[in-house]
């Protein structure tokens, strides 16, 4: 089995928008994760989620990966964007809309 860091890099690299969270989009298990999902849904984003409660290695590994102590964590096009507080600030300022609708580098003509 691959190291957690490699698995995380694979998930982050293989999905344009991915949220590491507690629970699922349908049943978030934490208020912060729930807030993150609400923001993404509000923006009509197409995203993948990873339930860290189902995977203790990822749950620990993701904190080291981004040097960020909390979950949820949003990654867009391979870059760590932030947790739910930063998502909310960026949502309110319009930055998140811009970030999510920007075409990925591989989509270009």
């Amino acid at each position, binding site marked *: 089995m691959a190291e957690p860091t490699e698995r995380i890099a694979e998930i982050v690299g293989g999905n344009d928008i991915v949220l590491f969270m507690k629970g699922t989009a349908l049943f978030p298990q934490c208020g912060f994760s729930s807030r993150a999902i609400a923001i993404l849904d509000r923006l009509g984003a197409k995203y993948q989620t990873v339930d860290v409660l189902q995977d203790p290695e990822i749950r620990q590994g993701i904190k080291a990966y981004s040097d*960020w*102590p909390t*979950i949820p964590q949003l990654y867009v096009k391979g870059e760590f964007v932030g947790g739910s*507080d*930063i998502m909310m*600030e960026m949502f309110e300022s319009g930055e998140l809309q811009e970030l999510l609708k920007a075409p990925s580098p591989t989509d270009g003509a």
Partner: protein
Amino acid sequence: MPMAASEIERLIKAAIPDAGVTIRDLAGDGDHYAARVVSRSFVGMSRIQQHQAVYAALGGRVGGELHALQLETAVPSKETSNG
């Protein structure tokens, strides 16, 4: 384990001496806080870096001992208006 708001403020100010710290106890249970931290030292840092600086000040408590800390960081308004 609950942590006092005054302790959170003390730790942040110990690491970021010029910080203006406002803490609200969201649920009244000593375990769910919102903190707003304003410091000149955040100038030129990304939001992620600003939050990381506060997490570092709290020395690994966030995500463990301190489960729920809603965090907002900013530079003093004088600096923002100067661009």
